[in-house]
């Protein structure tokens, strides 16, 4: 295992949390710097998740005066999180939203976070990189879009973030081959079933990559394999910005303003520049001045905020000069297959993320569809497992019978690269939230390529489970993750932000989150979002000698 002590010199978060068995540095939060609304801070960050927190930490270190807003709480894992599915309801974005289209996407616990740390608080922990091919799918395969940056430009930031989380896994043979700072974790019955089936079929698999400590890291302890990764890690073993970047940001003078809902990014139409944000805190609407605003609210709330911030000069929403805001939102097709074994698998033991194959990630010229999918272990807890059983049409006594058999099942999940489509988009609904702000209406429909990929992934998972000896296989169709909605582009007409994540039309407005991804690959997006934020921060810091508000 490589020594990670050098990480401390650029990000001391893991050393700033307690080592006495408690999980939160309350002193650091009590002593946090606080700005006045009338202070023109250097940067306001809207949304303290994967993108916003990394940006905040980097710029605070560089001496910027930063305030991070989050609509949700500033979590304390000891008091706020529980080892319980239903009790974790508050981790999710549960403000009203409307989901529409031919394939309406389930939101809430499926893909939307709330509170400092964002969706990474409840993500499983998978932290794969994109492949080099993901950055030019249009040129290579005639589908999707080309990114305005290359894999090569992002790769150094992947490595930095992998060290800061840190990521554990076997040496990775897919995409650009690379290794991980922490060794692969031991695996449970669920992972062993996947390995056995894959070996039988000659499909290569690897353990990892998961952003879960395997060994002590700073004051963060080793994982205890309790299995509740999706309910918030009470151990501080699984990475989320709450413990990987926020502590260092606070130590460098950033302020986090939690339970503060930003209602609009405010623009001065005459100068064409952002002047700050309006926000609700404690029921009072306030205005924070800022020299620069970075919206980091993820694929639904970022477009919604831009659309809700319309002015006379931008009547269709900020930075929406070319009708690009809210378009090309993507989810991954995520069919999951479960197999029944005479042995006891007890998939609830150990983290759900264990073993992966990316053998089907790239376009296979022998197949009728473009791009591909990955397969990973997932381990539904009882309530989620009931969704699998109910999805088969079972209810009443048959549902109960299947559920009684829980300990005998192993589950795999696929991530299919659904393509970016202009009509898969976020618009404003006539319904309003408790602040009176129009809520997001999210419309989603699959294209033919999407359906073919999902079918192929479904079939491949079934084969693996059968090869492992499953006596029965059940499959459930679902989706995972959310990216796009304000994509980066090489030209102003084709997107919302440029390669440095600066909006094309407003020079001091940045978008630093998953909404900027032009394509999504078959990789879980957290690591890529963080790497993009780290790169954007570097570009800002490099440019600051010219003055942070220079155009």
């Amino acid at each position, binding site marked *: 295992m490589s020594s990670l002590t050098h990480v401390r010199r650029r990000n001391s978060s893991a050393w700033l949390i307690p080592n006495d068995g408690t999980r939160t540095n309350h002193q650091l939060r009590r002593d946090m710097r606080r700005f006045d609304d009338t202070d023109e801070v250097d940067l306001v960050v809207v949304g303290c998740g994967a993108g916003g927190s990394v940006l905040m930490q980097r710029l605070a270190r560089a001496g910027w005066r930063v305030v991070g807003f989050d609509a949700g709480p500033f979590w304390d894992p000891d008091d706020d*999180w529980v080892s319980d599915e239903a009790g974790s*309801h508050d981790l999710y974005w549960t403000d009203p939203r409307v989901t529409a289209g031919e394939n309406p996407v389930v939101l809430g616990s499926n893909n939307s976070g709330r509170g400092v740390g964002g969706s990474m608080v409840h993500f499983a922990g998978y932290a794969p990189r994109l492949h080099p091919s993901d950055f030019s799918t249009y040129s290579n395969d005639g589908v999707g879009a080309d990114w305005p940056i290359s894999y090569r430009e992002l790769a150094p930031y992947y490595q930095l973030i992998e060290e800061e989380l840190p990521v554990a896994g076997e040496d990775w043979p897919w995409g650009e081959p690379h290794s991980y700072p922490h060794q692969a974790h031991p695996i*449970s019955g669920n992972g062993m*079933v996947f390995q056995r089936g894959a070996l039988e079929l000659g499909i290569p698999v690897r353990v990892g990559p998961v952003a879960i400590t395997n060994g002590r890291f700073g004051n963060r302890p080793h994982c205890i394999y*309790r299995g509740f990764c999706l309910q918030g890690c009470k151990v501080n073993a699984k990475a989320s910005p709450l413990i990987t970047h926020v502590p260092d940001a606070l130590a460098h003078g950033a302020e986090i303003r939690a339970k503060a809902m930003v209602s609009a990014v405010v623009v001065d139409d005459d100068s064409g520049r952002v002047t700050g944000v309006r926000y609700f805190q404690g029921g009072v609407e306030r205005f924070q001045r800022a020299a620069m605003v970075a919206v980091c609210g993820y694929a639904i709330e970022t477009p919604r905020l831009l659309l809700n911030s319309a002015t006379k000069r931008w009547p269709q929403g900020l930075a929406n000069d070319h009708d690009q805001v809210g378009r090309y939102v993507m989810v991954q097709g995520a069919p999951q297959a479960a197999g029944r074994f005479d042995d006891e698998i007890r998939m609830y033991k150990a983290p759900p993320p264990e073993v992966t194959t990316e053998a089907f990630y790239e376009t296979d010229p022998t197949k009728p569809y473009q791009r591909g999918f990955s397969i990973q272990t997932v381990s539904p807890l009882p309530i989620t497992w009931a969704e699998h059983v109910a999805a088969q049409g079972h209810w009443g006594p048959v549902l109960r019978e299947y559920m009684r058999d829980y300990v005998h099942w192993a589950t795999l999940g696929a991530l299919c690269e659904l393509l970016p489509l202009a009509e898969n988009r976020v618009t404003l609904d006539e319904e309003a939230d408790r602040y009176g702000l129009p809520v997001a209406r999210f419309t989603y429909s699959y294209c033919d390529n999407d359906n073919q990929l999902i079918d192929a992934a479904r079939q491949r998972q079934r084969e693996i489970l059968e090869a492992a000896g499953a006596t029965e296989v059940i499959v459930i169709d679902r989706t995972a993750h959310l990216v796009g909605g304000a994509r980066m582009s090489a030209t102003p007409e084709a997107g919302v932000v440029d390669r440095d994540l600066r909006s094309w039309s407003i020079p001091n407005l940045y978008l630093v989150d998953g909404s900027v991804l032009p394509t999504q690959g078959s990789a879980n997006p957290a690591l890529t979002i963080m790497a993009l934020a780290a790169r954007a921060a570097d570009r800002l810091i490099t440019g600051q000698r010219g003055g942070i508000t220079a155009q």
Partner: protein
Amino acid sequence: MGRGILRRPAESGANTPGGLPSRFPGFDVLAEVDHWDAATVGTVLSRLTQPPALRFFSPDEEAVGRALFDQILDQRAEPKIPILDMVDARLAEGQTDGWHYADLPEDGEAFKRSFAALDEDAVDAYGVRFASLPWYDQTDLVQTVQDRDGDWHGLAAGDIWDLWSRYACTAFYSHPWAWNEIGFGGPAYPRGYKNLGINALEPWEAADQSDQDPVGRGEEIEQARRRHAEARTRELRSKDPTGPDGVGDRLSSDK
């Protein structure tokens, strides 16, 4: 910790829904409470206390909802997990999932309207309210909703089914009695797990005893279905000498 008080129903000595014998004899997840963290203990044990008085559903809606949720989770005998009460609390407190399908109103309204629709179907088909129907007539009516494609009383039938089963299963499988029934180890912090792997148990976990039963999984399920069908026939015969077909005709002629 007060476990003695909270491990109801003490009167039956049972710790599973309906007091049914478990495939994991001797396993009681609540025996492990002392190994859980305080926040989790508070959350889980609160489900064993008396649920608060209903605030969201009207008495008419309550009657439909109790019967419907017991159907979906096959709760035929006490002690029951109070599904309706748990759903009522969620809706009263606005603890919904937030999002809703474009062709459904928000969750609370969708429940109210769908419960009224189920009652209407019961009156149309049998002349009595849903809650007053015998168990297997309720089963038949619920099945007609699941089988329906498209519109049902102005609601998308598939989305309503999804809503019902999602809320009912979330309530039921959040309850420690249900965990005992399925052999789930429950909360695992700060202890964690030490014995990972196939057929690997912690000292406090109990092995599934039904492995000794050679009956295959599919056949077991089919047996459950047959028991269901036979019981249904018996019940219909006792109530209606013309047999189940007569009832079926009434139902289908209504479609």
